[in-house]
Structure formats: C-alpha cells, structure tokens
C-alpha cells in the first residue's frame, strides 16, 4: 500500500503543475488583452498601466509564469479586483457551503439509490425493478438546470414547503441537495442493482440461505456488504461530478458556495478570483480522485500489496 500511495503521490506532482500551468496559460493564449477582459476596452490608460504592473504583465512571460507558480504553490491567490480582498479568504468563506451542499447531495443520492437498487435487484423484472430503472434513466437525462426550477415550482411555489433560494437551515438545503443528488442517485441505483445481482448469484449466498439464515441477514449482511465495494468507489468518483454540478445548482438556488463565486468572478471579469476558484475546484477534484483511488486500494488486496490488479 505504501508503494502504491507513493506512486500516486509522485504522479500527482506533474498533474498539479500542469493544472497551474494551464490556468496560467489561459491568460496569454486567449486572444486580446487581459486588461480589456478585466477593465473593459474603455478603461483609463493610468488604470490599465497600474493593473498591468500589479499583475506583472509588464514582465516577460517566463517571469510571469515563475511568479505565478511561486505564489500559487505558497497559497497566495492574489487580490480580487472588485472586492479588493484576498482571494484566498473569499474562497475560504465559501468552501463550507459547497462542502455542505455536496455532502448533502451525496447523502440524498445514497439514501435513494441503495434501497432502490437493492429492491430492484431482489425483485428483478417486477414493477419495482422497472420503476427503479425508469428513475435511473430519467435521472441521468434530466439536467439539473431544469430539475432545480421544477422542484422550486412544485415544492416552493405550489406547496410552499421549502424556501425558493438562499442558505440557512435544513429547509434551505433540501431542494439544492435533491437537484444536485438526483443524477448521482440515478447512476448509483443502476450500479447497486447490477452489483447486487452479481453478488446474489454467488455460492456463499446459496450457502447462507442453506444454513437457514433469515433473508434480511442474507441480503444486508452477506450480499450488500460485498456488493457495496463498487458502490462506494462510484460514490467517490461521483463526488467530483457533484463538485462540478454545484456550479449550476448554486447559481439556481443562490447558494453562497464556491460554484456561485466562480460565476460571479466570470460575470464581473475578476480574473484573479476566477483563477483562484478554478485552482481550488481543480485541486479539490484531484484530491477527491486520489482519496477514492486510495480507498479502492485499501479494499483491494492486490493493490494493497503493491501488485497490479489482473484485468
């Protein structure tokens, strides 16, 4: 496991450097003057010169790159142009809301998918199975920027059960979490079903039944325990997807997370804030994938022992 961890960490170095390089390259590779992007074409020459100096744009490209790398690796993401506050602090204020939403969405997904997938597998080809599979198909095809307004329309406007938008108690969390978690629930339902179907065919399940164990013990203690390894891996992989989906969900529900901050940065053409948000989201994405890999490694003895899994 130690070797595997070391290998994964070493491979992380070029990826992190590559992400930083790409974020840096957005600026020189994009046509036009970055100062125009931030201040608009009608800005005063003095303001333009001041901003150019502040962002080291008056230096050669390689020097700009080294300054950017040094600052980013030291955690210095610069100053927001509009808010005139450190980007790092602005992002740190928004992270808890995004984490709250992402974890709530993952919880919603698991709470829907596990019972639906298990029931679907146990009653294969029944109306329960067909219903669960219909949900899985619709959930994947339904974009969250449509589901969100639909949920608002029904639960907030017609029934008045939940607030339309904003951040506060549990009531504020329900609709955004459902919006963000539905697609993941759909994917997990399919995975849980197929994983359970595989496990239910195993000999040890027949043995457990032959021993006279109750059906509940056979299913939850024997079948589900073994069937949940690929499900857990998928949950980890999907967490990254939730982070991406939070950009749109946070915008719909005015949720004060990092996704909405990214959109604000784009609308207000706040380049340092945008860079900071992109770097933070990407690094979180990389970290989630790494943790998923490691968790998978812990559950697979071939990886734990430093051997390549057999295809």
């Amino acid at each position, binding site marked *: 496991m130690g070797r595997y961890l070391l290998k994964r960490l070493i491979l992380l170095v070029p990826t992190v450097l*590559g*992400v930083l390089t790409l974020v840096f390259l957005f600026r020189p590779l994009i046509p036009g003057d970055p100062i125009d992007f931030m201040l608009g074409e009608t800005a005063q020459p003095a303001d333009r010169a001041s901003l150019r100096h502040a962002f080291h744009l008056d230096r050669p490209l390689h020097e700009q790159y080294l300054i950017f790398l040094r600052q980013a690796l030291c955690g210095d993401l610069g100053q927001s142009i509009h808010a005139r506050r450190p980007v790092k602090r602005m992002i740190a204020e928004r992270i808890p809301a995004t984490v709250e939403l992402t974890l709530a969405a993952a919880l919603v997904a698991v709470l829907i998918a596990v019972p639906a997938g298990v029931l679907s597998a146990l009653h294969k080809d029944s109306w329960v199975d067909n219903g669960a599979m219909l949900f899985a*198909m619709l959930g*994947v*095809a339904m974009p969250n*920027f449509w589901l969100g307004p639909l949920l608002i329309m029904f639960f907030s406007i017609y029934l008045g059960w939940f607030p339309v938008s904003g951040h506060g108690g549990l009531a504020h969390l329900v609709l955004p979490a459902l919006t963000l978690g539905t697609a993941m629930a759909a994917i997990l339902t399919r995975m849980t079903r197929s994983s359970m179907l595989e496990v239910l065919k195993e000999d040890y399940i027949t043995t457990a039944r032959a021993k006279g164990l109750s059906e509940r013990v056979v299913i939850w203690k024997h079948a589900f325990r073994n069937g949940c390894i690929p499900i857990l891996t998928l949950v980890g992989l999907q967490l990254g997807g939730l982070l*991406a989906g939070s950009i*749109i969900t946070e915008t719909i529900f005015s949720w004060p997370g990092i996704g909405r901050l990214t959109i604000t940065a784009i609308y207000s053409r706040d380049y340092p804030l945008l860079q900071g948000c992109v770097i933070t989201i*990407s690094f979180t994405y990389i970290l989630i994938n790494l943790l998923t890999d490691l968790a998978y490694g812990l559950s697979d003895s071939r990886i734990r022992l430093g051997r390549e899994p057999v295809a």
Partner: protein
Amino acid sequence: MFWPKSFNVRNRLVLLGLVIIVIMILAALLAPLLTPYDPFLHHLDEGLSRPSWSHPLGQDRFGRDILARMLYGARISLWVGVSTALVSLMIGMMIGAAAGFLGGAFDEILTRVIDILLAFPGILLALVLMALLGPSLNNVILALCLVGWVGYARLARAQVLSIRERTYITAARSIGATQKRIICSHILPNILPPLLVEATFGIGGAIVGEAGLSFLGFGVQPPTPSWGAMLNEGRQFLLIAPHLTTFPGLAIMLVVLGFNFFGDGLRDMLDPRL
C-alpha cells in the same frame, strides 16, 4: 466491415432512441413548415400568454411563440451536439490511436495531458473558455470540443493498446504490411465501434453542455433561440408562467434520453460479451 451481423432494428431500446432522434431531426429541419410563427418576432401585448390553440406551448415574455423557438432551437442543439461529438471523436481518435500505437514519449506526454485536463470538471473548463473566448455558437462548439476530445483519446488509446497485441496484427506485420496500412486497415476499423458508442452518448452530453452554458448566459446569445437560454429566461417567471421552463427542459431531457437509449442499444449490439 466492423458492423456486426447482430444489428437489427428490432432492438426496442435502439428503436425508441432512434424514433426520438428522428423526430427531433425532422422537427429541426421542417421547423418553417411546422410553425407559421417567426421565432424572433415580438408581440409584446401577448407576452407570457399560456398555451392555447393558436400557440400550443404558449408565448414568452416578448410574445414570441415558444413552439417556434423550440423548433428552431432544436437546430442549434442538434448542430452543437453532432458537430462537437464528431470533431471531438476525430481529434481524440487520431491522438489516442497515435499515442497507443507509437508508445514512448508521445504516449507518456499524452497520458499526462489527459490527467491534467481530467483534473478540471468539464463544465468548469468550458465555462472558463467561454468567458475568455466570448459567447458565440462557434465558441461553444470549440470549448466543448476542447473539453470533449480527452475522453475519446483515452478510450482510443486503451483500445489500440489492446488491439495492437492481437495475432491478426502480428500476422499483418509478418506479411510485410506497412504501419500506415496496419493503422488504417486493421486498427482504426476495430477501435471505431466503442468510439461510436461513446460519440452517441457524447451528442447528448454536448447538448446538455450547450444548454448549461446558455443557461448560465455564456452560450448562444439572445435573440437566437437556444433551449438552455429559454430555460434561464423562464426561470424568472416560474410563478406566473411555468410553461416557459417546462417545455424547453422536457425537450432537452427527451433528446438526451433518445441518444442514451440509442447508445445503450448500440453498445449491446456491438459488444457480443454484453
């Protein structure tokens, strides 16, 4: 020919997907015949009208017919979906196949580039590119292609790595076939089926991508009709005109379902192990 004998339209999933796709394509192509209304023409006095016999899906805040805008919007969605999937497929297939076949430094570099690009959530990268390039239809396609080719390259590389060790490739080499002939006649035709399946899902993904970008205001710009932009516009009138949000969303879901059904069925038919 790579197309297996098992292809048959009786496969219900493919058929259902195909029917949805064909209806969408016909609706987009025949838009001027299917609706008498101009999708751009304002009737401000009829703004936010509910569905009626003359306007089956109602009218938006400027009094424009929603059905007409959806039919013309289907052209944008399908064009973005198909062109993005095709261009991404071509780029990804060529780069991935070359990396898998040549190996060495090129393969190593490509693997690292793929790792880096996969470190960005797709929608985030597309959003940033759109913000920097500026909103336009061509830029939407460009941004989605820049994000989308990676998946095809990874798949093509993995396919080539598996195929290049097969005995028929060794046999081709032993009878003196050139590298170009091996790639064009033996490798590319054999890696194409899984890539085509991926491209089918990719069309649906690109349609959602375009709609998502337009929903956030970075995609196709008004007054050009786009399903995502229509959804975003309708969001402001959820209370008084829910039909503005309902129909474009339904169209996006249906077309994505169509391509997903078609892709699922195609995969089942092309992969005999399934």
